[in-house]
């Protein structure tokens, strides 16, 4: 009987466990109550961080070659940093300039806004090297300084793409610059759309760049949900009860209806067989006829 005993103890354990769950629900509700208060108190301070604006992604499209007038940007909070590129394994050379406004927040954090980009066109010799890249299906690499304020001696963030991905009608390029304050975490470089896999050799019709730049900050994670008792207990239970009758009759009783259907069909087929049997056999009551039909069926087997 030890087995049954163990099963029984596990059943008791199950009951105990449910009791424990009920108790723990009640207690967790109390805790979360306190946490909400906490939230109110520190809510403001929580926002005080170097990355205050979570939705800072500011897509800016700048037509290439168009120099912006710098008269309105003359404030001392203007920053510039240069884009450098390399063809295959060559050394990096300047290829354009990013300029942006450095906004200093009251709490000391700094962020970049209003990013503009001016792209230098390819020189003739660069065009030739680029053509060679296209031919070899090699990488076109770009890099940015990892800190926009002082780029000296700091690391560079680098990105690269197969040159064949860039050529459309023009040269289409897409920058996603991931920023953390004044630091550039990473730059993702590539074509704005898809780059189809068997990369075909195609020379651009026009040697001008269509540049798209996106500045991305970090997102804040959603907070872990904190519940109070009423969500847990009353409301939910009632609504669940109300929703119950919405189930259709078929959805509820299909498991009975299907076998019933089978039985009926079975009986039907029996009934179909019956007249044939009756023709040759003796008259009898309905039930007996069915049974006999069965019997003869068995005999035939």
């Amino acid at each position, binding site marked *: 009987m030890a087995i049954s005993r*163990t*099963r029984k103890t596990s059943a008791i354990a199950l009951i105990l466990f449910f009791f424990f769950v009920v108790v723990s629900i009640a207690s967790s509700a109390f805790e979360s109550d306190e946490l909400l208060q906490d939230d109110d108190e520190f809510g403001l301070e929580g926002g005080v961080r170097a990355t205050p604006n979570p939705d800072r992604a500011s897509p800016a499209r700048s037509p290439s070659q168009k120099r912006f007038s710098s008269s309105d940007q003359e404030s001392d909070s203007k920053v510039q940093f240069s884009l450098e590129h390399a063809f295959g394994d060559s050394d990096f050379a300047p290829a354009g300039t990013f300029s942006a406004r450095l906004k200093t927040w009251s709490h000391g954090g700094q962020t970049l806004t209003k990013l503009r980009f001016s792209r230098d066109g390819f020189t003739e010799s660069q065009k030739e090297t680029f053509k060679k890249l296209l031919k070899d299906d090699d990488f076109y690499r770009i890099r940015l300084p990892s800190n926009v304020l002082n780029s000296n001696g700091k690391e*560079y963030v680098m990105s690269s793409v197969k040159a064949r991905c860039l050529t459309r009608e023009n040269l289409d390029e897409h920058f996603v610059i991931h920023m953390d304050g004044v630091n550039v975490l990473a730059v*993702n470089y590539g074509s704005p759309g898809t780059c189809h896999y068997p990369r075909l050799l195609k020379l651009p019709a026009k040697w001008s760049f269509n540049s798209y730049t996106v500045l991305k900050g970090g997102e804040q994670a959603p907070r872990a*949900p904190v*519940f109070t008792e009423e*969500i847990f207990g009353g409301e939910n239970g009632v609504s669940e009860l109300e929703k119950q009758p919405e189930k259709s009759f078929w959805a509820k009783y299909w498991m009975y209806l299907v076998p019933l259907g089978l039985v009926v069909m079975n009986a039907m087929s029996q009934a179909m067989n019956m007249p044939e049997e009756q023709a040759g056999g003796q008259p009898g009551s309905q039930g007996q006829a069915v049974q006999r039909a069965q019997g003869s069926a068995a005999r035939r087997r």
Partner: protein
Amino acid sequence: MEIRVLILLLLPLLLISLFAPNPTVALYEDQVGLMDWHHKYIGKVKHAVFHTQKAGRKRVVVSTEENVIASLDLRRGDIFWRHVLGKNDVIDAIDIVMGKYVISVSSKGSVLRAWNLPDGQMVWESFLQGSTLSKSFFSAPLNIKIDKDNVVLVFGKGCIHAVSCIDGEILWKNELSSESSDIQHVFQPLGSDLIYAVGFITSSKLVIYQINAKNGDLLKQSTVDFPSGFSGDLSLVSTDTLIALDSTQSKLVKISLVNGETSLLPRDIADLIDGFSGMASLLPSKLTGMLAIKINSYIVFVRVSAEYRLEVVEKINYPAAVSNSLSLLEGNYAIGLVQCSGSKIHLTVKLDSDWNSDMIKESIELGHQRGIAEKVFINDYIRTDRSPGFRALIVMEDHSLLLLQQGEIVWSREDGLASIMDTTTSELPVEKAGVSVSKVEHNLFEWLKGHILKLKGTLMLANSDDIVAIQEMRLKSSEKNKMTRDHNGFRKLLIVLTKAGKVYALHSGDGRVVWSLLLPSFRMSNTCHHPTVLSIYQWQVPHHHAMDENPSVLVVGWCGFSLDSPGILSFVDSYTGKELYSLSLTHSIAQVIPLPFTDSTEQRLHLLIDADGLAHLYPRTDEAIKIFQRELPNTHWYSIDGEKGIIRGYGLQYSCLPGITDEYCFGAKELWSIVFPSESEKIIAATTRKLNEIVHTQAKVLADQDVMYKYISQNLLFVATVAPKAAGEIGSANPEESWLVAYLIDSITGRILHRVTHPACQGPVHAVFSENWVVYHYFNLRAHRYEMSVIEIYDQSRSDNKDVLKLMIGKHNLTSPVSAYSRPEVIVKSQSYFFTHSVKAIAVSLTAKGITSKQLLIGTIGDQVLALDKRYVDPRRSINPTPSEKEEGIMPLTDSLPIIPQSYVTHSLQVEGLRGILSVPAKLESTSLLFAYGVDLFFTRIAPSRTYDSLTEDFSYALLLITIVVLVASIFVTWVLSEKKELREKWR
């Protein structure tokens, strides 16, 4: 007719039981041990103290390098009790005091604990304070008495403490190290009230403290200059004589402390030993009146007499272990020596007074797989014929522990298995035609008897004897221990690599060691002084082409401790446990990348990245290079520099460095880099998907008939960074100045696909990546709780494929190849939940086809493994799920993840010192094998969605058989009856 009716009746029942929402997967009490096993280990023994005086149970108390204190049975080697101290609580010394307490000093001399000897209960615990963090953490417990109180002297943190043995009270304390002194010995001359503490201040200054043993007052402090300097070795020969070694390691310096006066007397070793050259060192064994000096390849025993006559008594070859001297009743001292030659081990016990005659000289055959003896501890006992006998506890090179007595091995423990570095698995050999299976099931009668017993159990008719028999039968089921592959893929070889450089193959049925191999290429040799093992990989998995060959594994290691030391590769046959061949590389190994290609003999291609960023291809065959050349433009790798906070991605070039003509070497070109600003972010965790994971479907069908496409890429990398201030322990930073940033990075292009900041959170971060989701665990400082977050990533670029019309006319991109260079259109869903436990390791269950739902396998702080359904950490949970969402299996949102006691897969067991969890798919889709390792090993089978594709172990075939028989019989009976009735009807 009846069958049909029965089935009709059973069908609903069957369906109900299949779909009933029952989340419990727990075992019944009688199922424990059926498919799980748990082995206890202690690790490599550092200290051992015997307790054999009383007539009771003989035991030896040991402390190990895994920070375990354990009491072992001297007769059988079983563990009476053991305590696993924390990872940072390194045990410095242990001793037995008053014959009933084991005392231990740990954490660099700051924690002193006493354990009750019989049952291992902690009696008291004292924290020793010390102002200076002294480098030495030496402690010398020795017995003196103050006011009839047993006192133990502890040196730690630069102080000498006298601690009462009764309750751990600190009676007095003397802080010695005003300067950076390095105390080597604390001792008390016999019958004296003085305590001497001797150490070095600088390399050329010796310091001697004299302390009153009663109250700890410092009586005298003297320093002695020795201009030519000391090497740091200091050996206590007798209570007034110490021998040190000078800085050239060619002179012995005798230090005598007679009447409080200190005198130094140097002497050349060359005078003592003919033909001495090179360096000498003192062995750390504590010998009385003797000295063991290691010179080149031999050990010289030197007797030190009172008037400083040095006399060489014996010279033995080096690979030998010397015990401390053991004081015998007659005032003699015994010393144990263990030497190894070939497969034999020689134990010699000698008396110091009479060196020429051996007390014991024994040779024992040991085999080749244990290496040399590293430590020996001896203990004496009185034989039945009243003559003295000795037993020796020997720690071998592979960390195993042996007890030798009367010329044989009484017991041995494979304690190397407590320090597993890496694990992999291998299939067992296929059952050959010659191997008979019928042996397993004895005969039909036995089989039937077994099932009748099971039936009795099921019908609750069994009495207690039957139940015992049933339980025994189930546990002993030889089915699970066979050495051949089984249909369900439950039987496997677990191949584990331990820190000692030994490879073990464990059978998954019961965890027994099938074979073990102390890797010859990872043993200390003249060419490589400090080999270290790193990891183990599947090298050759015969699959289609080479079924006759045995699978093999690759063991990777370094010859040295640093990244730039040359690498060693060793190839081991998984079935025979023989080393096939080994390679000593000229380049270093920073990273090993198993490539997704195999050659014609099913050898997997591996790319080894060295410290200079060059890639080396293995195996070095023409065929491998041909395969790899094709895939070279598509091969990328990345490196994470945690110090500087830079992740770099590389592509490969066709040639190595200019000037080097090595066709198996490829240069790398940097393609992308991500620089985390050092002032705000520090990398603390990174994880990727498992290479062998199989994803069943890319599409996820929602309840509203909508489809989401999982973004499935082998190249996704999850990286977590924290604020540098918050990189320390929990509580070391304010919530305001700590944050945690999680990244999803495509490791081909360096694209940051997702970046999310958790404010006021900090590490340690444990993460697991599977399919298109990552779950990570961290601490939330503001909520004062641990949290688990989930990020799921979905591909939007394929969402147009939902249009059936487009699919029909072929306007879809389902078959077009995916390029990493395309701009990904992804959407990310995430959610955070509170989680009660802190986590030691986290893994995910893997199944053969990836159809079965996943479980997170969480190694909790209590050293247990918790299986948590992935459904609980779903980002799509909402407070009030719609009926259709409920149908899909989405649970209502809760703020914390439930911990259901029944979902501990380790049930009541603890895998002490849990470090890793490995999940291996079985052939049966529903089932996954789980291997958890730490100091202990634990193995079990888990079925995340329950075993929907097989019958349970205790399924009663007899009941089924009987039911069928009864049904058939009743059909016949009713048939006969109906025939008769029909006949009667006809005759009527």
